[in-house]
């Protein structure tokens, strides 16, 4: 089954009541409530190919969770349409449920009073997974997530890391082609985070699952995603690769070289500015929107000049995203 996600002009408007301040305001709101419409998601279009991991990024309140809720079928869009693995999720909830797995941050779908393995058995029956298949999948997940060391423990006694690993396994027990992960590693320590990332990489690369991930952890994005969709105020700001994002929002790299001839003349290159020159030291930086990536710039510099030493500085993805959020917020 194809695990593609197609989103076309998806919008969702919520209507809320304005709460006026003070006693009089509260009374007025009670007698004559003022309703306002808020566009949580507005005209979003993107695709995710089968076997691709896409990071859906944006600041808090940008509309990421609302988008995921529409794609999981929990929420019906105000306009536009979406297809997940060929199914319109909000029209065929049950059919869609068989095609998708989901983890919502620290919200567990496991039964608090039961051992983890018992929760897995309940889900196996809910999703009609044959017993033999269930056993094979549990073994596979155990190898990747080390579940057997705690799967006979009741969920209430698990650490956060153990619980999230169990939840990831629970979300994939029925072998869904599409997985939605809404900040799955929030609050976890670095070791468990890395284990989860390995697991996700395996699911995408080896199992061909389509993953839509939202996170605020840029290390996670860098390690897992090739493509990113950035939304802010409910609108799509950018859909592209990490390189494209860096180029657009994070052109803050510097290439510092030591020239073999300290008196050699140095001039700017196409898209590359000479930032500073001090004796044999020359510092290059990006020049304008058509600036090359840091690695392309490095190639051009060493092809043009004879250098004895090179140092590279690049803004990390966190800086890039900060710039992107600020710029997108101002647009």
């Amino acid at each position, binding site marked *: 089954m194809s695990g593609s996600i197609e989103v076309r002009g998806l919008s969702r408007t919520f209507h809320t009541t304005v709460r006026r301040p003070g006693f009089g305001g509260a009374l007025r709101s009670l007698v004559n409530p003022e309703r306002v419409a808020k566009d949580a998601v507005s005209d979003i279009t993107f695709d995710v190919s089968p076997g691709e991991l896409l990071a859906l990024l944006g600041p*808090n309140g940008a509309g990421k969770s609302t988008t995921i809720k529409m794609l999981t079928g929990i929420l019906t869009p105000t306009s536009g349409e979406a297809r997940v693995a060929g199914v319109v999720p909000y029209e065929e909830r049950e059919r869609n*449920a068989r095609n*998708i797995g989901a983890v*919502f941050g620290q*919200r567990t779908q496991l*039964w*608090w*009073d039961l051992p983890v393995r018992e929760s897995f058995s*309940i889900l196996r029956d*809910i999703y009609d997974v044959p017993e033999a298949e269930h056993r094979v999948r549990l073994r596979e997940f155990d190898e990747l997530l080390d579940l057997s060391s705690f799967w006979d423990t009741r969920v209430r006694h698990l650490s956060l890391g153990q619980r999230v690993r169990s939840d990831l396994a629970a979300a994939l027990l029925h072998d869904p082609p599409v997985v939605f992960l809404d900040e799955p590693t929030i609050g976890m320590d670095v070791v468990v985070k890395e284990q989860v990332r390995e697991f996700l990489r395996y699911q995408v690369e080896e199992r061909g699952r389509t993953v839509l991930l939202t996170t605020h952890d840029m290390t996670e994005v860098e390690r897992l995603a090739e493509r990113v969709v950035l939304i802010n105020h409910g609108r799509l700001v950018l859909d592209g690769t990490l390189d494209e994002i860096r180029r657009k929002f994070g052109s803050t790299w510097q290439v510092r070289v030591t020239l073999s001839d300290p008196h050699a003349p140095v001039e700017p290159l196409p898209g590359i500015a000479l930032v500073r020159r001090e004796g044999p030291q020359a510092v290059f930086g990006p020049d304008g929107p058509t600036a090359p990536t840091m690695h392309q710039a490095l190639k051009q510099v060493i092809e043009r000049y004879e250098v004895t030493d090179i140092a590279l500085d690049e803004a990390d993805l966190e800086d890039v995203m900060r710039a992107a959020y600020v710029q997108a917020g101002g647009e």
Partner: protein
Amino acid sequence: MTVTAVLRGWRAARVTPLGELHTPPRMTAALLRLTVQVVLVASLWQGLYAATGTTAGLSEDQAVTYAVLAVLAIRIRELDQYAGRDTVLQHMHFGTIVYWYLRPLPPQRYYAFRALGEQLYGLVWVIAGYAICLAAGVVDPPKSAAVAGVFAVSAFLGQWVLYYVMLAIDQLCFWTLRNGAAMLILIFAQNLLSGVYAPLWFFPDWFITLSGFLPFQATLSVPLSLYVGRIELSDAGPQLAVQAAWVVALALLTRLLWRRAARRVISQGG
């Protein structure tokens, strides 16, 4: 019904009983509480009847049997879902209610299966308690096989009504996010108007008439009155019909509420 559907139902039905079995202190506490309640209630009614014969149409044996059976019956739904973080209120609060809508088992069916398991598990407690009380002579057996049969039908309908009442209160969470106050009112109303605190026959006529417009007396008072013979077998038909009518009315109401609740899930939390 397919084997798969039965399996699904069985697993969902096991959730709360299994949680109880994994928590022996909760079972011990329930056993102690039930024992103390039965002893106190039996002593209270025996004491109240010490200086009188028949009151409100009930003899001492009838009143004690009614009161003890009422105490046993409330155990059917008195499971500690809260400790298991499995109340609808908690699922709304923690945002985990979304998972009910992400499974190929519709939330209303999952809820029904789970409630069925709880009620069957509670029934085991009731039957065990009833057998002990019967052996100890605390309660009387039904007067005839016909009374036992009609009581069984009425008790079944009563539990069905109770299921829908509890469901409607749980569904309130989708609108209010908190149903603590509603639950407190419900528990008080249920205990008072169904006859747990005292058989309804001891209340003034206007109170009995008024409570007839609510579903509570259909849950417990009607089956227990049939059991002790306060309602004659010849009058059982209309009573069973009223219970069945409550089942239908509440089924329609809760069905409508489930449909509307689905639209509310999304607006609670990001």
